[in-house]
């Protein structure tokens, strides 16, 4: 683990080699939009919203997974990158059935925030209108696949932090979907500890607490950093 210097958006910054571009950018108040990333969980690098230009790389690299190297030259925002990020958002909206007006997470949803931040006021791609199942067999929580963007935060928090390993992604390609245990109803799971961490880390209205009406599902993610500090990680 060695100290090194690199440039982000023309600004000379110092960093250590075990940091990712995102870590360094955050440490220097440089905003890079993220979606599937969550401080405290291993980076997944799947949503691709955090891609940045790195000199010498043939393509933009995901800043949440790419470790910094000496003399790296990073550009976090260009016209091209912004149009790519906006298109990724449009893809996420077109893939699911995101009817914000009647969603419990309306007003408290990271996907909604990103859309506003990136001025995505409409989706040019046709909607896929996939028939996605819902699972309300659990006593306290509900899973609405319509709102799922496959960021796998729930999978990661359940296996890395809680250790129950109830959640996983099944299927492949656009048929990928979240399942519990052997694709069996959540309520019948013998591995789920009902800790609710998955609900708290879910960025959208997919994993929610039962009993909330529209606009009422508010999630608090700071338990994660607190837990990690307690565990000395």
């Amino acid at each position, binding site marked *: 683990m060695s100290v090194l210097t690199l440039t982000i958006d023309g600004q000379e910054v110092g960093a250590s080699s075990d940091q990712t571009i995102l870590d360094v950018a955050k440490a220097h108040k440089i905003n890079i939009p993220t979606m599937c990333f969550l401080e405290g969980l291993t980076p997944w690098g799947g949503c691709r919203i955090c891609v940045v230009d790195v000199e010498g790389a043939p393509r933009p690299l995901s800043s949440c997974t790419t470790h910094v190297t000496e003399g790296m030259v990073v550009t976090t925002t260009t016209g091209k990158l912004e149009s790519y990020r906006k298109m990724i958002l449009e893809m996420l909206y077109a893939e699911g*059935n995101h009817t914000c007006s009647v969603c419990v997470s309306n007003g408290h949803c990271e996907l909604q925030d990103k859309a506003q931040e990136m001025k995505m006021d409409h989706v040019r791609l046709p909607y896929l209108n996939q028939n996605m199942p819902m699972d309300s067999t659990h006593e306290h929580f509900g899973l609405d696949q319509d709102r799922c963007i496959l960021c796998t935060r729930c999978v990661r928090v359940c296996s890395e932090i809680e250790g129950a390993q109830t959640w996983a992604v099944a299927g492949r390609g656009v048929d990928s979907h979240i399942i519990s245990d052997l694709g069996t109803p959540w309520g019948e799971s013998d591995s789920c500890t009902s800790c609710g961490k998955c609900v708290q880390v879910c960025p959208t209205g997919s994993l929610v607490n039962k009993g909330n009406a529209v606009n009422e599902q508010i999630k608090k993610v700071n338990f994660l950093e607190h837990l990690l500090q307690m565990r000395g990680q």
Partner: protein
Amino acid sequence: MSKVTVATVWLDGCSGCHMSFLDMDERLIEIAEKIEFVYSPFVDVKELPESVDLGIIEGAVSNEDDLKKALKFRKSCKFLISLGDCAINGNVPAMRNKFSVRECFDRAYHENVTEHPIDPVGEGVPALLETVKPVHQVVPVDLFVQGCPPSADTIYYVLTELLAGRTPDPTTMTRFGA
């Protein structure tokens, strides 16, 4: 200086956006001095004039009639606005898209219907499209005002900006579901 002609229509929606338009309350008077409704649920005109300055569409395109109206609006209006989430992403009406029209008819008009179950198809009843579409997927749209409904302030901001000859940025004031 002649008034700006405005036409509005609500396709498959709940008219909430039009109601929110009226919520501008006293500011309507100020607006009324600059614009003139030439075709709208607010007025009695039945025919859409050949040429209109500003067209405002609320609601999604979910049947043949909506489609005809959207096409006519695009042809007549110089500037077209999609007002509200239904027009922009299909919103609640589009929740039937995961089912076929057949399944919808069975569920609504046949299941546990005792007296004379029939499909709602026939003379004078516009046929449903297989999927409910946002307006901009049938005709090009110039401005999108998100919200369900977009607040009166947002609509007022959009109108005043347009009347002043500027292009407004509604995302600064509203968002999906706002």
